[in-house]
């Protein structure tokens, strides 16, 4: 064994000793109390995307909106677009969450958990993109329809442009954010699979 190897072995042994001391210091601390544990038991986990309550609530809101659109005698395209949205979006949510049981997600090993998260995030981006594109198309078509019916005003156009900018902005932010998260997942997976 050369001097360099002896040095690093000593260094690693020192690290182990330092770590044992650190654990001993932490062992002497109370760290948790009954209130903290009770609070954890009563708290919900941080959701990846939508909570369990959001989906049925969203469906209920859409159903009411569609019924109201018919009852109020709005143009046919409004309730139809809402229905198409419901038919596309909610199956999309179930597709994105397929195989992801959030309560048990982190119980798995690091590699499989990271792979599941990466798959979810990729599907989530598709879902967000679809949402924004649908909304954008809806605004464009609605504005064109109103123009053809001569009920469009300059204010409506301004609102349409504002909503379009909002869509593009949201999409860009989601992409930047998701790209960062995906990169971190990719780094973990690449590292772990380096020698497999």
């Amino acid at each position, binding site marked *: 064994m050369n001097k360099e190897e002896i*040095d690093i072995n000593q260094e690693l042994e020192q690290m182990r000793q330092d770590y044992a*001391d650190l654990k001993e210091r932490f062992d002497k601390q109370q760290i948790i109390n009954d209130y903290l544990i009770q*609070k954890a038991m009563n*708290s919900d986990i941080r959701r990846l995307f939508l909570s369990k309550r959001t989906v049925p609530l969203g469906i209920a809101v859409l159903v009411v909106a569609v019924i109201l659109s018919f009852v109020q005698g709005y143009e046919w395209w409004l309730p139809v677009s809402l229905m198409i949205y419901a038919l596309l979006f909610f199956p999309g949510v179930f597709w994105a969450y397929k195989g992801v049981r959030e309560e048990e997600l982190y*119980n798995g090993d690091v590699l499989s*958990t990271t792979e599941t998260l990466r798959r979810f995030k990729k599907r989530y981006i598709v879902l967000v993109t679809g949402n924004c594109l649908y909304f954008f198309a809806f605004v464009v078509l609605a504005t064109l329809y109103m123009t053809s019916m001569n009920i469009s005003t300059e204010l409506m156009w301004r609102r349409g442009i504002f909503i379009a900018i909002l869509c593009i902005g949201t999409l860009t932010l989601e992409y930047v954010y998701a790209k960062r998260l995906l990169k971190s997942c990719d780094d973990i997976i690449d590292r772990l699979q380096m*020698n497999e």
Partner: protein
Amino acid sequence: MDNKEQTFTQLVREHKSTIYSVCYMFSKDTDEIDDLFQEILIRLWKGYDSFRAESDVRTWIYRVALNCCLNADKKKRRGGERVPLSVDIDPFEDTNDRALQTKRLYARINRLGLVDRAIILLWLEGLSYEEIGAIMGISVKNVSFQLHRIKEELKKSHL
């Protein structure tokens, strides 16, 4: 408290310093430790039913804790009341001899990437290659390769 809650409370008390050490190695300040610790506790509680079918409690705790530290979005802060942990030392700020020793260890480990940090932490805990593999989801051969590579990294940063 029912029986399940009592068993869980006992389990968490037994492993509190392990969870705290993991949080410390992946945090930049005590607020972040509090947040991570709380998230790990919640994840442990939510997954407790599925764990009881498994055998090794230590492996399960490390899996949940490391998954939280590596995969949880730390910027997405937990809303509501933050409950500070009952710790009368500040591993980031204290300046006595033992604290300096802790900081030295923290600095060495923090030079490594996230995955390497997790693996060396498990090695420092004295876990076997099989246990490290089961936690990280890799083969024993790969654990040996990764540890060799990390030790080389540490050697480079030491020189």
